[in-house]
């Protein structure tokens, strides 16, 4: 079979970088693969399931990070992003982290469909990627610096204000398993431990600059649909609030209306103090400007400056719903400026806001319950709302300093295993990853993402069965779940296919859209099944199944066994997986994933599924 090069949307080549040998090459990827896996997370899932054997060491020298934009990146499509995907050193499962800004598009404009980084450098390096040219730059001097200083140093050395950067901070260097990549100073590709993997490879960061255009097969047709898609994104009324308030507006909404604002390590969702740290307060005393990603009319990122107190003058981003939830209400914060300082400190250190917030909330509750003593935490005694102690604990986590740093940087699952004494009940995680800021007792749809998503307790994987499939497509197209997907509502599949076909010269139908999403989810599942994941792992933490919400609009709500069963059954049957959550042979064949039949059979035998 001859494998054709892509006609449009993709260049047909991925930049493969070997940090051990300090070499690079163009790796050809045929059109058929893009049709099957799209790009971004989907393409990474294809590489991961075809190149890795089960139980790969996620930090092996030849372990790779795939940084994937998708076919729509760099085109007229409204708002596009980037996916950082790899086997997670945190969860041991397949994992992907999406981020906005301009980085992904710049990769496309440099003429690449993605960057595949393997190997391990002896000395710290950063990568300069300008079109076809890759340079391995010495990063000895910037090793140890925070993400902002690193970003500035790299931008300065690039001598090009239009170069786009992705860097790690001290957390990644120090191998904190939930460290992240910070893209263009304020945006994070977090949750998967990408920072740790980059740190392990001694890769401090990269800067990309491109001068090319993405080829389009039928430009007139493509522009028609892309213009329409943009117009919907501009006009749709339901999204005007996000433009005005970013996701910070949800902090108040989820407290007053949805009853799903996490509070004090999932003890409740009723947090009247939210008025002191929510979107309204941010608007009153912090925000200064709205910032957009590529070609996006929603500009959900808000930048502000702290105007009083000891952090006066600090420019920071946020709060977003997740960062304001995890490092705000989750920690019982009542001082807005302290909360913003925590958020900004996490960004500066390159550590995931969500997992960090989860760990701090868990730790505080254990201290409250006497399961942890200040002696276990280098004499620190965290209590709700105590920003200074939290700041110090984050610093210790980042540098793995002292008893506290070593313990907390493991994440709640391993912490609970180490502490014992029934602390597992308070460890709010799925598949080893802390949950985000939506309490599924109040907002049951969120359980789909947490329980069934491939990466563990992640909020960015869809809030229904079909939502999971849509998000698999979003994360593979590397589009934005707001501006280039959900905002299109019922027209999502139609618009996406309507852009992809004239762009790439494909003949995708709306059915193909759904099948492609299913294929990508199934590829991710294949990887996880090989690592022993099955139905037993696709549930929520015990606390959310047993403790009723004590107050708020959803008082008394709990996530039940029936809820879980219904959700799992519905999802597995839609995807063509069996009752144990394993893709059937028929499904694998139907989706063109025959290559995995043996792997699945082996997993069934090994794990007795």
């Amino acid at each position, binding site marked *: 079979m001859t494998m054709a090069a892509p006609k449009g949307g993709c260049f047909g080549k991925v930049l493969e970088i070997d940090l051990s040998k300090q070499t690079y090459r163009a790796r050809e990827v045929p059109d058929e693969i893009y049709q099957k896996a799209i790009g971004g997370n989907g393409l990474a899932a294809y590489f991961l399931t075809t190149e890795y054997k089960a139980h790969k060491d996620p930090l092996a020298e030849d372990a790779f990070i795939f940084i994937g934009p998708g076919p729509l990146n*760099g085109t007229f499509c409204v708002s596009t992003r980037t996916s950082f995907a790899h086997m997670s050193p945190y969860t041991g499962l397949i994992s992907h982290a999406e981020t906005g800004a301009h980085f992904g598009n710049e990769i496309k404009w440099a003429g690449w469909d993605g960057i595949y980084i393997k190997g391990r450098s002896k000395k710290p390096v950063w990568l300069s990627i300008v079109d076809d040219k890759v340079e391995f730059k010495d990063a000895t001097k910037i090793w140890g610096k925070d993400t902002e200083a690193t970003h500035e140093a790299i931008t300065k050395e690039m001598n090009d204000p239009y170069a786009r950067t992705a860097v790690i901070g001290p957390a990644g260097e120090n191998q904190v398993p939930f460290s992240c990549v910070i893209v263009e100073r304020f945006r994070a590709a977090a949750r998967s431990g990408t920072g740790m993997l980059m740190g392990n490879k001694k890769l401090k960061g990269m800067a990309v600059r491109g*001068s090319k255009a*993405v080829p389009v097969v039928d430009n007139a047709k493509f522009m028609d649909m892309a213009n329409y898609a943009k117009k919907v994104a501009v006009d749709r009324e339901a999204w005007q609030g996000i433009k005005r308030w970013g996701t910070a507006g949800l902090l108040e909404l989820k407290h007053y209306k949805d009853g799903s604002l996490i509070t004090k390590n999932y003890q409740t969702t009723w947090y009247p103090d939210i008025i002191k740290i929510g979107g309204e307060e941010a608007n009153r005393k912090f925000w200064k400007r709205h910032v957009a990603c*590529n*070609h996006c009319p929603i500009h959900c990122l808000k930048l502000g*400056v702290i105007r009083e107190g000891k952090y006066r003058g600090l*420019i920071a981003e946020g709060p977003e719903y997740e960062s304001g939830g995890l490092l705000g209400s989750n920690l019982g914060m009542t001082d807005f400026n302290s909360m913003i300082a925590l958020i900004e400190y996490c960004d500066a250190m390159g550590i995931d806001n969500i997992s960090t917030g989860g760990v701090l909330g868990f730790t505080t509750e254990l201290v409250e319950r006497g399961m942890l003593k200040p002696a276990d935490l280098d004499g620190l005694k965290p209590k709700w709302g105590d920003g200074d102690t939290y700041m110090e604990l984050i610093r210790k986590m980042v540098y793995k300093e002292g008893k506290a740093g070593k313990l907390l940087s493991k994440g709640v699952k391993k912490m609970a295993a180490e502490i014992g004494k029934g602390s597992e009940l308070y460890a709010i995680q799925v598949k080893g990853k802390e949950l985000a800021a939506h309490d599924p007792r109040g907002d049951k749809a969120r359980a789909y993402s947490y329980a069934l998503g491939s990466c563990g307790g992640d909020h960015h994987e869809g809030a229904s069965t079909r939502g999971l499939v849509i998000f698999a497509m979003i994360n593979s197209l590397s589009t934005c779940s707001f501006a280039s997907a959900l905002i299109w509502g019922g027209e999502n599949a139609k618009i996406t296919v309507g852009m992809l076909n004239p762009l790439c010269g494909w003949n995708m139908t709306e059915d193909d859209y759904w099948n492609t999403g299913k294929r990508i989810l199934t590829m991710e599942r294949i990887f996880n099944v090989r690592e022993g994941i099955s139905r037993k792992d696709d549930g929520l933490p015990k606390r959310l199944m047993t403790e009723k919400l004590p107050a708020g609009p959803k008082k008394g709500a709990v996530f039940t066994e029936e809820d879980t069963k219904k959700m799992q059954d519905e999802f597995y049957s839609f995807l063509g997986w069996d009752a144990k959550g394993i893709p059937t042979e028929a499904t694998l064949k139907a989706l063109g994933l025959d290559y995995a039949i043996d792997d699945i059979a082996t997993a069934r035998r090994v794990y007795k599924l």
Partner: protein
Amino acid sequence: MEGKEKKVPDLFQKETSRRGFLRGTAVAAGSAVTMVTIGGLASRAAHAQAAPAAPKKDLMKYLFAERENCTGCRACEYACSVFHTGVVRPSVSRIHVMKYKDAIDVPVICWHCDDAPCVAACPTTPKSILPDPNHNGMILNEKTCLGRKCLKCMEACPAQYVNVNPDTGQPLMCDMCAGEPACVKACSEQSGNPQGPCLMANKLGFGVNLAFRDVTPNKAGADLLDLTFYPNVDGKRPTPAKTKKARR
């Protein structure tokens, strides 16, 4: 700052009301003074004589950027490159949005200066860049332009606006999309909630362009950073040292 002042009469449109007449006169007098006092326009005037006398459409002649309103979405770059090449390609976009310390977005535009230092600096005869008399767009003569060997226009531009076309090595000049700038349209289409558009076009310059254009992108970024983040009530800016310390 100039808005889209539709009511300001175009000199060509011969508005007859007294108010309009007076305004028109004032502008005419203004441009006459400009022509006399500012050099480098001889060729431009000659160019103007050869052109048709009255354009039919309301053609815009000046670009403006309300820098504070820029969100950095680059819809202008997208629209510009689509207008000129059919596809999105920021490297050949005439307009650019520069990140300053990643906290500020600076729209870098051609202000269509009345004294056009780029034209004055162009060494070829005839000039390789000339403003179109109808819409003030800078028209590049690709045949005579010396490209990378020269780029005197790039050096001369006080706004450091000019970029180089990576394919040809020639400067990327803002041609005002023949009087209907695509960037302005794209910007206004998606602005509005909660702030107004950044880019605007107008038929009249009123010298505003000259006031703005001497600000380089980096200077504009530094100014905007101060303006946006540090206008404290007491007028004092917190010391950077304090900020740094707080982060640790």
